[in-house]
């Protein structure tokens, strides 16, 4: 996976990710697809919390495998996999092979995180739809 997403000034999607990064339990988040991180938070990967760096290579490799599954099976909504003491949550945008991905500690309260990731997915989806309409 290529590390390094797109940096667009005042990117509304990056702002959604910035708000997610304010959660104590969200250690990293991005919008990604196979072989690419599409959008990172405004601070890039520097805004990821330090403990993510140790597991980042493993998470990237696992995400590649997951994205393969997402592109093969169109009805996958969410994927949750564990790496050491962390979970990577992938919320797929409907009818796409792109997902919002968040890394959280395994001890995090997943129900509360799920509510906010779902809200973020909907916000980003709306931004993407509005961008499509304005083209």
């Amino acid at each position: 996976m290529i590390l390094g997403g797109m940096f667009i000034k005042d990117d509304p999607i990056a702002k959604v990710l910035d708000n997610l990064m304010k959660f104590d339990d969200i250690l990293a988040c991005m919008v990604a697809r196979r072989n690419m991180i599409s959008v990172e938070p405004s601070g890039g990967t520097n805004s990821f919390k330090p403990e993510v760096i140790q597991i980042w290579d493993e998470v990237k490799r696992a995400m590649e495998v997951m994205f393969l599954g997402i592109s093969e099976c169109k009805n996958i909504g969410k994927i949750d996999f564990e790496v050491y003491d962390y979970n990577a949550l992938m919320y797929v945008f409907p009818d796409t092979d792109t997902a919002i991905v968040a890394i959280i500690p395994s001890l995090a309260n997943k129900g509360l995180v799920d509510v906010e990731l779902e809200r973020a997915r909907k916000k980003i989806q709306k931004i993407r739809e509005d961008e499509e309409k304005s083209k």
Partner: protein
Amino acid sequence: MVEETIFSQQIAHTNNKDTTDVGETKSPVKASLGVSEKWDAREAGREVAETAIQNLTRPPDFFLLFSTIHYEKYGGFQEFLNGVWDVLPKGTPLIGCTVPGFLNNYGCYTIGATALAVSYPNADVVLGVGKNTKRDPKNAANQSAEMIKKGLANSQYKNKFLLNIVSGPETWKIPGEGYKKIVDSGFWSKFATLAFGISQYLLQKGSGREDEIFEYLVQKFPEYYMILGASMDDYRGISNYQFFNNKVLTNSLVNLGFATDLDINVCTTHGMKRTNIKFEITKLSKDKHIIKEINQKPAVPELLHILDWPEGFLNEKTMYNIIPYYPISFKRHNREVPTIMPGFLKNSIVTPSVIDVGEVSILTISGRDMINSIKEGLQNFEYIDPEFGLFSTCITILTTLGSKINLIQKEIIGHFKQKPFIMFFSAGEGTYSPERNLTYANISFNTAILGHSK
């Protein structure tokens, strides 16, 4: 009329958030919702108040405010309240608290603030407050009860409602070990049950004791309809706050007393089912908050044996992912009290409420049971056209369902249509009515709807 005109002008400048559909009505009851997702405390306070009152044509008679804990780090709760009072008319009765999340007509939020502003001429409103709830719940209940009684003594309205918000459980930080749900080893485990009692009295850490406060208030106001919720943070159990007018409180009880000609009903539903796993509680601590022995054996090892769980199966990592789904049907004064076990102290089990010795059952519940439970609860209100509603619901339901909580929102909106409601998630909840008596439970929906009989 002059007062209404001035009020309308005051709110004319507010941001036009898309909250205009909810609460629009020709009824004399004006009830309106506010929401903010802002992270800055002062801005969020302003926005939640603006959006709550922008649709009212009269000043609110009361203002209920719920917020998630994150403002503690993003400006503080006094700033949050200051933001609310930048907008809210002076003298508006306000109570509220921190919650792990809330659900209303607009969706479910685990970050943000929501408010319900109600204006109705045929009602009397009074607030009550009691302090030091964990140290002396009876005294706290008495303090607030005196204010409620005095405030509504001359009310001409026969239907009375009491909203009870109590400071919820707080885990104490064990020196050298941090915040723990299981204390099974180390120096402190030797003194665990003694330390629990001392910390509750001296430090006001431990169980919220909201069940005890509720019992006292029911004794004081047997003719009232009541709903109870215990405030909490984001399920970590480290801190929680209550709001009383312009004050931010801790370890407090705050009450809204509402006497009105509106019809009122409350009920509790939970959807839990009994399993065939039973046992006998044979020894409790003096304050009846800790189970010391089950079947005349040390409680924790015996519980693990009954459930056929190996030693070490429950630990800090697995505790909150497993134990809430094995609630127990305890007994209290011959009432059934389904609750979860929030912590283990060496070989003893902490319960969130006061319980009695005797036979108990393990219960079970699924996500589907939870959703069916709210449907069942709403059926009790089919004879009322709601004007506004409050739901005090267990945090475990939110953590279990996650974003699927929108299925519950759909059920409620089906009943409320355009009328506003707030479901606030709590760490201990219940209802009381003269017809159904007191119900205290975990993993439950507790519904209060005020409106007009059909």
